[in-house]
């Protein structure tokens, strides 16, 4: 791969939170614009609570990575020395592979979590807006999103819940199917139980009622979930109306007993009930699970589900890594064939510029009374002429690249022939060829093809 792609970053594995917060980037657009100078042609920055990743495409100068580190430290008003021991620098294929792994959530703290892809898309959007994402980054990021999609659809790396609250929601779905129209009851108030209730609401549950020994706290929680508060003593009378019970009280003994649940289930005509007991000591009598149409999971059961799912995800990550490797190869191949692209673009732009310059000259000569139709026709004529003139060199370049692999030599010659890099040629350049003895070796080499 000849393109110079660098990925410089730090993440939750290489830096503690104290370092990550110091070097987090706040204004990505401004930072990207700051980066795109000197050797750096394109740039994209991603900054989340777990990682900062800076992707650049440079002209191959070894100073590019240093330039990034200095800009990064400067943007955070921190010393560069603080970054050095925590950052990784990946080049070319390694950089592409790392980016694909980040997009596919294989590098995340929680393997397979979906947020990173959204964050990467947002970072890309900003880079496009700031004008620092061009041909290589555009293609690379689109490929990264494609890889993430492939990983998601072809492997189970993101298929199972890996948090207690999500595991509870996934189980509820396995019992009830869709959760629309279902009702839940939250007994007591614990952070994890509230989170589970929140996820259930997000999954479409119709209503949540809250029972707490302190009624004011129940009202406060009910207001947050747009549900209703019920007195703790009225818990049993409300149970027949609910499908899911999440319990997390600090009670030393069970709050819900199997013997009472028989009556509750009878009242609700044996429609299924799902109990999530997050309290320690447990709030719900374990015998409830023995009743027909009653399903009980306590905190240890849920932890086991999460552990199992994490192990499954790790197995699936192997498959995902194979996908990443395949796609890195495909991207490298594309990049190899793309080396012509900037030259072709430059060639056409140069032709258009010349055509416009000549058009303006002609229009000035014709005077101000030239009809609009004539002006437009002339414009079309010169642009089309420029494109046609450059058509054959472009075809030639593409053919050479196709037949002989990397077309660097031909690209170089074409750039020189058409002076696409707008180098100033010394007035006596011809002299140096004819009278080499009168010039230094450096001057001679300057004019030789590299």
């Amino acid at each position, binding site marked *: 791969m000849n393109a110079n792609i660098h990925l410089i970053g730090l993440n939750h594995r290489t830096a503690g939170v104290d370092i990550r917060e110091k070097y987090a980037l706040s204004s990505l657009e401004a930072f990207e614009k700051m980066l795109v100078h000197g050797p750096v042609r394109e740039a994209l920055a991603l900054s989340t609570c777990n990682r900062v990743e800076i992707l650049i495409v440079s002209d191959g100068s070894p100073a590019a990575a240093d330039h990034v580190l200095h800009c990064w430290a400067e943007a955070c008003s921190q010393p560069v020395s603080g970054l050095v021991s925590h950052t990784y620098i990946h080049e070319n294929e390694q950089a592409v592979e790392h980016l694909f792994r980040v997009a596919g959530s294989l590098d995340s703290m929680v393997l397979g979590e979906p947020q990173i892809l959204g964050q990467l898309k947002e970072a890309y959007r900003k880079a496009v807006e700031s004008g620092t994402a061009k041909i290589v980054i555009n293609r690379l990021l689109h490929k990264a999103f494609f890889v993430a999609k492939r990983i998601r659809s072809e492997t*189970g790396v993101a*298929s*199972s819940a890996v948090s207690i609250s999500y595991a509870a929601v996934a*189980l509820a*779905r*396995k*019992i*009830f*199917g869709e959760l629309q129209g279902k009702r839940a009851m939250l007994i007591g108030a614990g952070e994890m139980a509230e989170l589970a209730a929140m996820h259930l609401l997000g999954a479409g549950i119709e209503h949540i009622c809250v029972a707490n020994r302190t009624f004011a706290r129940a009202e406060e929680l009910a207001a947050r979930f747009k549900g209703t508060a019920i007195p703790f003593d009225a818990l049993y009378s409300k149970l027949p109306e609910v499908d899911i019970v999440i319990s997390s009280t600090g009670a030393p003994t069970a709050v819900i007993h199997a013997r009472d649940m028989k009556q509750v289930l009878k009242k609700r*005509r*044996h*429609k*299924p009930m799902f109990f999530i007991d997050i309290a320690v000591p447990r709030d719900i009598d374990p015998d409830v*699970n023995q009743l*027909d*149409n009653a*399903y009980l*999971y306590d905190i240890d*059961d849920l932890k*086991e*589900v999460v552990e*199992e799912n994490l192990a*499954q995800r790790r197995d699936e990550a192997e498959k995902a890594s194979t996908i990443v490797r395949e796609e890195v190869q495909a991207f490298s191949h594309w990049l190899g064939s793309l080396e012509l692209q900037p030259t072709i673009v430059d060639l056409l732009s140069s032709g258009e510029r010349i055509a416009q310059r000549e058009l303006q000259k002609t229009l000035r000569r014709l005077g101000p009374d030239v009809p609009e139709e004539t002006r437009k026709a002339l414009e079309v004529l010169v642009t089309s002429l420029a494109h046609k003139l450059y058509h054959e060199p472009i075809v030639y370049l593409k053919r050479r690249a196709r037949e002989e692999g990397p077309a660097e030599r031909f690209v170089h010659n074409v750039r020189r022939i058409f002076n696409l890099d707008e180098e100033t040629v010394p007035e006596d350049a011809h002299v140096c060829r004819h009278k080499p003895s009168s010039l230094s070796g450096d001057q001679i080499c300057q004019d030789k093809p590299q």
Partner: protein
Amino acid sequence: MGSVELLKLFVIGLYLAGTILSLSGILVARKSLRSVGMACAVAGFALHTFDMGLVTSQPGNSLTAGAFYYSLFSWLLLLIWFLAWWRLKLGFLALTISPLALLFYISSLRLAPMHVTTPPTLLGLFFGLHIGALFLALALLAVSFGAGLAFLHLERKIKTKEPLTGFRKDLPSLSTFDRAVHWAVAAGFPLYTVGLLSGFFWAKLTWGKVFSWDIKELTSITIWFLYASLFYQRMVTGRQGRRTAILAIWVFALAMLSMLGINLLTPSHHSFTAVPL
């Protein structure tokens, strides 16, 4: 080999391919295999429909032949499976229904005609009310059997907190299987009742008595009582879940015993005999 035999062989081939691909697609959790299996089953079903059309268009009482009964049952099983797939997304019923349909279709080729004295003018009525209604009810029982088995399997996994691995991860929810049992019982029991009553009526017309203590008749009555109990529990008391799933499985098992065991092995009004090889 005549063209009809060739057609039947094609049907068997497609049903066999459909069954194997659907089962392996479910067990290895590969959607593409399931889709190809389904396509084979649909193609087999289309040819099977054509085959039945040929039989019904023949002159005489070919409709009352045992061969046609089993072929019809196989066809209805698939029809109901397609409906369950379409309405409840229960592709997983392939695990039970697809092998059953194949078994009955192959069996149908080995059965000799059963002698039933049927006046041609009443043939359609007899067929629609007795055979049609009963077989439809049994095909629906097959759905409740398959859904009931899946329900019990998934429920045991959830109750014992075992991890849901392999194809189990893709299984629909418990409530979907329960709804399938409910749907099949709600539609199946009235049909079974109509089929049974029309059978008694028919017996009075052809044999001069409503009930002749025939073993098939006794089994059918037992099945009706069990089916009625299942219907009552589901529709009247609103009972759901495990208990009704178990009962549905037993009712279906008894119905299959009656259909394969009694019809083939015991001497009764409903006996079929196998064609000697």
